[in-house]
């Protein structure tokens, strides 16, 4: 608590309950866990409230819930086709979790769950393992032909396959790091500019006038961060769909 405008402070975890251990691993209930719980509660209560009246002509709350639902529904149907129906709840869960995590992070003093690389990496690894599982369940071991493109000369086939494997393995890395990097960098930059405002304003009348520039920047960045928060959730969801599409419709 030494420096109140330390831009890293917002990412610190602290135990709320615990410390608990399972098999030697620390699994305390932290502020991150608390916000995960808040995300689940918010998404669930919002959608239940939205669907509660079930009016023929939707009100505002119901409209937002329906737009939310149809946005992901259309995405899944457009990318995965009719077979993708089974994955709709999963893609919806991923999108909603990431979206609400990002949006809650925009509130001051709130913790941003997705600003920790382990969270985004776990989600990304889960998506890729699911893609592999679905691919093998659908096409058997023949699914691994994905890495052996047809019509390539024998001489360079091992090389091409190696590249294919690397490109496949880099998917979870890029998927997880993209979300993590965006959320982390956005929050640090926002905090740095907001810190400038406080620093300059404490330097007297000239500083107060001088702090107008970083204040304007902080306001503009806040708007940008809301866009990024939505966009990254969207990107995460649509990439999940695209990767699942590879598992469902493998073309040899």
């Amino acid at each position, binding site marked *: *608590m030494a420096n109140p405008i330390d831009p*890293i402070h917002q*990412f*610190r*975890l*602290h*135990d709320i309950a*615990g*410390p608990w*251990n*399972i098999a030697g*691993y*620390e*699994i*305390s*209930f*932290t502020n*991150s*866990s608390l916000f*995960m719980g808040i*995300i*689940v509660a918010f*998404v*669930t209560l919002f*959608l*239940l409230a*939205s*669907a509660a009246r*079930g009016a*023929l002509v939707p009100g505002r709350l*119901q409209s937002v*819930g*329906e737009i939310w*639902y*149809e946005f992901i529904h259309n995405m899944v149907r457009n990318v995965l086709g009719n077979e993708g129906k*089974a*994955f*709709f*709840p*999963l893609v*919806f*869960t991923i999108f*909603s*979790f990431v979206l609400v995590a990002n949006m809650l992070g925009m509130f001051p003093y709130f913790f941003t*769950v997705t*600003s*920790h*690389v*382990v*969270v985004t990496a*776990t*989600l990304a*690894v*889960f998506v890729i*393992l*699911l893609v592999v*599982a*679905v691919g093998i*369940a659908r096409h058997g071991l023949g699914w691994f032909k994905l890495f052996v493109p047809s019509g390539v000369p024998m001489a360079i086939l091992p090389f091409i396959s190696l590249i294919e494997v690397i490109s496949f393995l880099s998917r979870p890395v890029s998927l997880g790091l993209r979300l993590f990097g965006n959320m*982390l960098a956005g929050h640090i930059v926002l905090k740095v500019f907001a810190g400038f405002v406080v620093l300059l304003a404490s330097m007297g009348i000239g500083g107060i006038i001088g702090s107008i520039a970083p204040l304007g920047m902080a306001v503009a960045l806040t708007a940008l961060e809301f866009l990024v928060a939505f966009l990254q959730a969207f990107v995460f969801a649509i990439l999940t769909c695209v990767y699942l599409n590879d598992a469902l419709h493998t073309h040899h």
Partner: protein
Amino acid sequence: MSQSTLVVAQASTTEVPAPAPAQGGAAPATTEGTGAEGGHGGFPPMDAHSFPSQIFWLVIFFALLYLLMSKVALPRMETVLKNRHKAIESDLSKASALKRETEAAIQHYEKSLADARANAQGIATETRAKVAAEIETERSALEKTLSAKLAEADSRISATKAKAMQDVNEVAAETAAEIVSALTGATVSKEQAAKAIAGLKG
């Protein structure tokens, strides 16, 4: 089927990234608390000590959210949307049925209008023909009486004329007899005079 693969995959996520903290070294030895209050100094998002806790709670809450979404929230949303879709569809079909009914009524109306018009036209022609026929019979009847009257008048005129001619002959005979007697003193009978006149005329 995909439901079961989901669960399998979900379960496996807990195992796969788990080795990360093992590389992080003697983390479990210090049971100090996750990312402990700035104690470790390092960059919190990269602090491997907090990984097990975050993964553990992420899996729990993500699975919970998935269950709530797939079993409760999304089916309800789907019901609402489906009901709306059905209501709109039935309204549309009702509207199109009504429209068809209206069109049939209009067609029926137009047909009866055309019928009435044709009917009226028929009556008009019929009446016109009847009136014309009546006029014709009356005219011919009138013509007949008129021509009859004309013929009668003609015959009367010719009778009168004949009679008048006869009277003229008689007067001429009488006058001739009187003239003869006055001139010659001979008495000439009426018949002789008449004969003589007839001979003149011949």
